[in-house]
């Protein structure tokens, strides 16, 4: 039981880095294994993934806006 709690905490603490694929291969595998059996952590993972996707979509939307700036004029100052 204690092991399960520690495992869940460890997984929860690393879900964000897991979403970003910033964990080493072995640990990444351990988290995948844990998520396959733990519904509670899977819910937290789902939320983490959703906020990551929401931010990406939001920022992508902002990058599509045309910046009104005279770039040639900027370059001409150099």
């Amino acid at each position, binding site marked *: 039981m204690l092991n399960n709690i520690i495992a869940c905490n460890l997984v929860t603490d690393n879900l964000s880095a897991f979403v970003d694929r*910033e964990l080493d291969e072995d640990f990444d595998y351990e988290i995948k294994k844990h998520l396959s059996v733990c519904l509670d952590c899977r819910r937290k993972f789902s939320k983490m993934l959703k*906020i990551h996707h929401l931010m990406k979509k939001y920022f992508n939307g902002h990058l599509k806006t045309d910046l009104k700036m005279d770039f*040639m004029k900027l*370059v001409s100052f*150099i």
Partner: protein
Amino acid sequence: MGVILRYLRKHDYKNMDLISLIEAAQASNLLALEEILRRQGNIVYSSLYHMSPFIDNIDDLSQEVLMRIARSIKTLKKKENFKFWMNQIISNVFYDDLRQKKRKPNAVSIDSFYDDLSDNTQKEIEDTTINIEEKLKNSELDIIIRNSIRGLEEHFREVVVLRELQGLSYEQISRIVGVNIGTVKSRIARARIKLQDKLKYYVG
């Protein structure tokens, strides 16, 4: 390469990859330099827009960053490090501006950012069946997300912009921000938890 570039027209630079553009710009090709600034302009603007708690001088700051890129492009040794190098310039300009204003980060009340939310926005927050794709096109949700990001503390906002907007790795972020990778990892995680809380009606 230099000889060929001399005969290229402005339009041709749009199809060139970034590394080739940097090489050309370093050889004093102004059209290549212009294309680099054009491509990076929105990223620079959007990064500063989301990093800064102030919205009055983002155009000026963006222009300053692009000027510094143009002035110092020849000093960039490893072309593949351009993104990292550019982000160091963005960070420098951003913090120089904060220092000039003699204000500490987070000096602006977070609450003030929520003042412009209309009644309609509040009604939308209560709608838990919202289609995110559709709602992202809606400027009101855009305001809610923007305010949620602005409501984060400075050090959280910075890593969110570098990670989600710029797509930088934790290692690159740690070098730009000047903290170790563990701190970057922890800040991104905590920032996301805070954003989850602020945007809970949209992420379930």
